[in-house]
């Protein structure tokens, strides 16, 4: 933040004559004395006796320095010298002796701080003696920094050199005086962050890094990357590998990650780093030549332990007992008797909802009461595609359990029903989501079905592969999937899901194999094909490849130009929003808002067409074309709305602004935008049930536009996902009552109820972790896939493709803190868990949490909560107490 805007002290120009007289009269005796002394010094300088100049200046300096400053008023000596500013400048001109001249320049420079609008402070500073910059006090340095920053832009290289000299004086001063933030601001302003490294010492680097990283969302690219890189260098300099690793992951720079990892020699620290990599689902290919015990570390990175520790937590919290959907619905608290079902007749839709809810609620626990106990009975209580989703929910139940999880699914692969087989394939994929095994069971099992003759089987296996290898960028898997994209026999649903799966696997990798294959499909497929609802997943696949890659996506966007228009603008917007996901880039948000604000001339007609779609025969080709174009452009608007949320979800201020904008969009915009807004609201606050967002969503869950209501209800589930939030639960029960007679809305309510109790309240869908600093691309991919399918909720989620809800699996992770001893064993220690406090820019060692409670690990951490060790006995190896933390015995601890 430039100091140039620091407020100038406003004082009226000194009026001569009478007014001065009056002022004099009000002065205290002490002030009078000071003023007289100053006046005398100035008089001396005006006189021509050059011998006295030095002494006069000396006493001026003493007087100025002796004054105590305060925030609100100009120091007395400076105030009294104001009338003499121009006189002093004249004096400076006439002084001959260089040393005295410099001395005089120093004094004028200080005086200029309160006076000039032009950069005279800096000008005279450069003319002055280059003595200690701090001598004139902190305010002077700040002012000077401001002028340097302002001057930098207007001057040439030569001037820059001279300014840099000054900067090199200011930075150490700032560092030594708790003003790290000012130092960083100055360097950011003049774009010379490289200097920082030499001046930061052991005591300050932590605060500097914190400040730099907290600035990241507020600066445009590519400066944000520079900030991160600087911070990374600083951490490396002081050997803070965990922080450095976090930053490298934030940069998504595999080379840096690898270097940091290999550089580490401490075996416990290696483990800690491996856990952190595992959380971000990065698996390094290392062998014993580079790192010792590589096998063990790779095992950690592949998250093989996740299921084991999660179950440990569940046992600790005593929540192993499986829950049935009714435990979550609590319909005995609803006032109406359910019209549907009533126990006597099975409603396929409600049973399907129950299958999902059962999966969500018992996710990861490995046991339930519907599927594993009841055998196949429950599966046949679902209809066709419902069977697929019901079978696939086994994957949720057995999440992350690659050792024991595949066996219970295996028997369904022998079923006579294609839907069940397909569901079992998807389940196999889900079990492996985020977890890697050296045997690659998912690849071995699923790849045979990718080219199966039945489309249903293909869907299960392709999406399964997409989930199992999400984020891995495994060429072996992509090689199996990409041929599907050019398969003429595949229908658009298969093509779309393949595009999505490829995108999920290659998320954020800019993998050209995937982008080329998808581009090829987009060009080859007919326009009619691209009009199908599943075509929207192809650009999503492209976008996911460039997730968070910012300007690197420009080339891809350029090449999208070859596609014909209606689809092009949607695809371009999709890729663009994905590329800037989580960056908080305000310029992009503005651009998206602009897209949303466009109104098309015939919204009503367009609406009608939407309703009559299908029935409509081609009446008037020209008119039809026009309308089609409009329809597709509105598809772009829907993406833009989600994009606003996607870009701004990373930081609080941006999210807050997005929330306000969405209010306007809801009120004034086209139906297609209104339908997307609830989803976007959900996205900015995933697994964080903020009251204002819940209230807004609750309002729109009663909307007369059915799709707005569906989306709002689902978004409520997303916002409260895995929190067991009582207020949300009550809201949803009330909604279940309100929508008791509307099977579609009731279905949504059930799904939302299931999500709210995701993993019995132990899981989160939030893509942010490690102190809300790091965005998991895999999680974002999962969320985006779900949200994009909700853009056409009627034909996708409420139609036959509800299995796409399982893409949420990619975003699921336990919100737990597990502490481990250096030899891998769970180590229960007391920890304080409380609300995180923002400590950016604070001096000293401020408290980082407030309102804490002391628990024994393993514990659950809610959104915005932070933990710290409550014992001196151990030292955590990671500064961020989240997920898995290795503890080391404190050598200085005495019991």
């Amino acid at each position, binding site marked *: 933040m430039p100091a140039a805007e620091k407020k100038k002290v406003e004082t009226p120009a000194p009026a001569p004559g009478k007014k001065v007289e009056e002022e004099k009269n009000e002065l205290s005796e002490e002030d009078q004395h000071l003023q007289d002394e100053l006046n005398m010094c100035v008089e001396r300088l005006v006189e021509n006796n050059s011998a006295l100049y030095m002494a006069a200046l000396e006493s001026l300096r003493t007087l100025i320095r002796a004054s105590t400053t305060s925030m609100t008023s100009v120091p007395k000596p400076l105030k009294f010298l104001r009338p003499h500013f121009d006189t002093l400048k004249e004096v400076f001109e006439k002084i001959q002796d260089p040393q005295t001249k410099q001395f005089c320049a120093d004094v004028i420079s200080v005086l200029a701080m309160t006076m000039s609008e032009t950069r005279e402070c800096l000008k005279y500073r450069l003319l002055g003696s280059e003595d200690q910059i701090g001598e004139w006090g902190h305010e002077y340095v700040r002012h000077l920094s401001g002028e340097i920053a302002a001057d930098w832009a207007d001057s040439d290289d030569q001037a820059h050199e001279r300014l840099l000299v000054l900067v090199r004086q200011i930075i150490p001063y700032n560092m030594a005086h708790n003003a790290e933030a000012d130092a960083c601001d100055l360097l950011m302003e003049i774009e010379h962050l490289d200097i920082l490294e030499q001046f930061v010492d052991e005591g300050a680097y932590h605060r500097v890094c914190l400040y730099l990283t907290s600035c990241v969302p507020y600066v445009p690219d590519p400066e944000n990357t520079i900030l991160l890189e600087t911070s990374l260098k600083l951490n490396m300099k002081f050997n803070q590998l965990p922080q450095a690793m976090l930053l490298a992951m934030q940069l998504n720079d595999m080379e840096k990650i690898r270097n940091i990892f290999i550089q580490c020699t401490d075996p416990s620290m290696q483990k800690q780093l491996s856990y952190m990599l595992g959380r971000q689902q990065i698996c390094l290919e290392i062998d014993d030549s580079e790192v010792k015990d590589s096998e063990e570390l790779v095992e950690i990175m592949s998250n093989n332990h996740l299921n084991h520790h999660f179950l440990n937590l569940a046992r600790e919290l005593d929540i192993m007992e499986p829950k049935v959907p009714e435990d979550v619905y609590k319909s*005995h608290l609803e*006032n*109406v*008797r359910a*019209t*549907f*079902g*009533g*126990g*006597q*007749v*099975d*409603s*396929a*839709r409600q049973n399907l909802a129950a299958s999902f809810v059962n999966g969500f609620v018992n996710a990861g626990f490995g046991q339930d009461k519907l599927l594993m106990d009841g*055998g*196949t*009975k429950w*599966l*046949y*209580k679902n*209809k066709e595609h419902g069977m697929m989703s019901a079978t696939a929910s086994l994957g949720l139940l057995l999440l992350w359990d690659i*050792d*024991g999880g*595949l*066996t*219970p699914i*295996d*028997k*369904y692969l*022998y*079923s*006579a*029903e294609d839907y*069940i087989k397909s569901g079992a394939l998807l389940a196999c994929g889900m079990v492996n989501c985020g977890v890697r*095994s*050296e*045997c*690659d*069971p998912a*690849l*071995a*099992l699923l*790849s*045979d079905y990718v080219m199966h003759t039945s489309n249903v089987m293909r869907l299960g296996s392709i999406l399964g592969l997409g989930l199992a290898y999400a984020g891995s960028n495994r060429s*072996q898997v992509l090689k199996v999937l990409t041929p599907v994209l050019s398969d003429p026999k595949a229908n658009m649903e298969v093509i779309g899901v393949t595009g999505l799966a490829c995108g999920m696997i290659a998320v954020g990798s800019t993998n050209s194999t995937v982008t080329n294959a998808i581009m090829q499909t987009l060009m080859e497929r007919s326009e009619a094909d691209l009009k199908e609802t599943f075509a929207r997943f192809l650009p999503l696949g492209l976008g996911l490849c460039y997730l968070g890659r910012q300007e690197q996506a420009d080339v891809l966007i350029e090449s999208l130009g070859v596609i014909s228009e209606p689809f092009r603008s949607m695809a371009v917007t999709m890729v663009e929003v994905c590329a800037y996901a989580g960056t908080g880039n305000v310029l992009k948000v503005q651009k998206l808002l602009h897209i949303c604000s466009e109104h098309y001339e015939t919204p009503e007609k367009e609406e009608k067409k939407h309703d009559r779609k299908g029935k409509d025969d081609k009446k008037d080709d020209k008119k039809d074309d026009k309308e089609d174009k409009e329809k597709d452009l509105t598809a772009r608007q829907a993406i833009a709305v989600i994009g606003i949320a996607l870009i701004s979800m990373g930081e609080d201020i941006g999210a807050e602004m997005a929330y306000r904008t969405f209010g306007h969009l809801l009120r004034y915009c086209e139906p297609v935008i209104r339908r997307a807004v609830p989803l976007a609201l959900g996205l900015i606050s995933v697994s964080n049930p903020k009251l204002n967002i819940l209230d807004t969503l609750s309002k729109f869950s009663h909307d007369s536009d059915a799709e707005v209501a569906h989306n709002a209800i689902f978004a409520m589930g997303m916002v409260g996902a895995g929190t067991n939030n009582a207020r949300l639960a009550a809201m949803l029960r009330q909604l279940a009552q309100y929508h008791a007679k509307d*099977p579609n809305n009731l279905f949504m309510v059930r799904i939302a109820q299931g999500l709210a109790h995701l993993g019995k309240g132990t899981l989160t869908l939030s893509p942010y972790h490690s102190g809300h600093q790091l965005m998991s691309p895999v999680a974002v991919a999962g969320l985006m896939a779900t949200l994009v399918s909700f853009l056409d909720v009627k034909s996708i989620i409420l139609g036959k493709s509800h299995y796409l809800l399982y893409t949420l699996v990619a975003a699921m992770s336990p919100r737990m803190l597990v502490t481990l001893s250096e030899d891998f064993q769970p180590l229960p220690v007391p920890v304080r868990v409380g609300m995180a406090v923002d400590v950016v820019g604070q001096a000293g060692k401020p408290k980082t949490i407030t309102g804490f409670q002391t628990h024994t690990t393993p514990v659950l951490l809610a959104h915005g909560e932070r933990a710290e060790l409550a014992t001196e006995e151990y030292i955590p190896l990671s500064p961020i107490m989240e997920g898995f933390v290795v503890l080391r015995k404190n050598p200085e601890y005495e019991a």
Partner: protein
Amino acid sequence: MPGFKVKVKWGKNVYNDIELNTDEHPLVFKAQIFTLTGVQPDRQKVMLKGAQLKDDGWGDLPVKNGATFLMLGTADELALEPEKKTVFMEDLSEAELNTKLDLPAGLVNLGNTCYMNATVQCLKMVPELKKSLVELRPQGSSGLVDSLSEVFRSMQTGSCVPPLLLLGALHRAVPRFAEKGPNGGLCQQDASECWTEMVRLMQSGLPAQNSNKHNSLVEQYMGGRMSVTLQCTESDTEPPLVSEENFLHLSCFIGQETGHMNSGLKAKIKEQISKMSSSLSRDAVYTKTSLIDRLPAYLTVQFVRFYYKEREAVNAKILKDVKFPLQFDAWELCTPRLQALIEPTRAKFKEIEDQRTQDALEGKDKPKPSKGVEPMEVDKDLEAQPYSFTDDPGSNNSGYYELQAVLTHRGRSSSSGHYVAWVKGDSPDTWYKCDDDVVSPVTDKEILKLSGGGDWHVAYMLLYGPKVLKVPKKPAEEPMSEN
């Protein structure tokens, strides 16, 4: 020599040092695994590094020493399709759905005929009446009884019925119901009148069953007998005049004080009337005491909610909130003679009740089930006792009643507004709201909300049925027939 020592992982089990020879058929290897795990070779999926072992050869599997194979498979039974296909409500037509859900059929409104529809729905709640109507042989005539029986029969199929014939018959029998409004449509009528007329018409159409005391089925099951005593208050010498009155419904008058149905009914027991006294030869004040001497199995209670406002020439409604119970005890309304008669049955009720409380206290009873399914199962080993005196079928032998149906009115006068029938379902606390052709399930809480006091549906006619005594089944005892 391509021999290797490999690991095989099966679920959580790991088998180390298994000999593998790539010159041999893969089935040999699978057989080896079979001996270890008990999983048939054809159910085994063996994989290594993202590839599956095919039965025709080792292919290009990267087998090496110490490699870990993963084996999937269980010895479990395979998933079998259940024999009975699940029927989904989404696939059913509305009529099929109603039958499945056991919803009573609705009746189509033919233009302000909700009063008739509601009445028919309520009368259908007298099982004996319904049975005899359904079993009635069509006589080809188009009388009310015939058409009603036709309607009941078609309602059994579960679909919505337009009661065209019934309406015609009703109009012929009671011409004033055919009154037309100013714009040619039918007028709304008083459901209570319709009820009375229908019951009256049925009196002549349906004979009594197993009883020689009564002329008609309606009287047998729905008619009661009141013992009326007239005592002159002004003369001590005049002997009380005792007479008998038959009634088909009890009226609950709503006065200032009436807050509950019981008090409204009790207010009728003792009345002061003035009457020509034969002994005093002048008009004197008499106390009229009306007590019930015979309780019918099905007791109709009518709330006298409408009074004729002469000025506006309408039947205005009293909106006052009058509570009514789901379980009604008629003890206080009975003559001492009847009280003595019903006492033994009531004692039995009490005995059962006490037994149940005792059990509950001692915790013998199974923990209270959360859903309404289990009480029915508990009922299975209970046996229903007849609710009538053996010498008088169609009477009530305990004085205890349970609410069966409520006919409500919504609106401000009897000839306007809307009538709806609320009838009890088979399972406990299930009720159905029969709003013409729309039938929907409701809870008993909602029934109690019909007590009035606002512009919501207000109870107008209540139909109480007998509370059936259920005693634990004695295996040897022969079930007694009711009719």
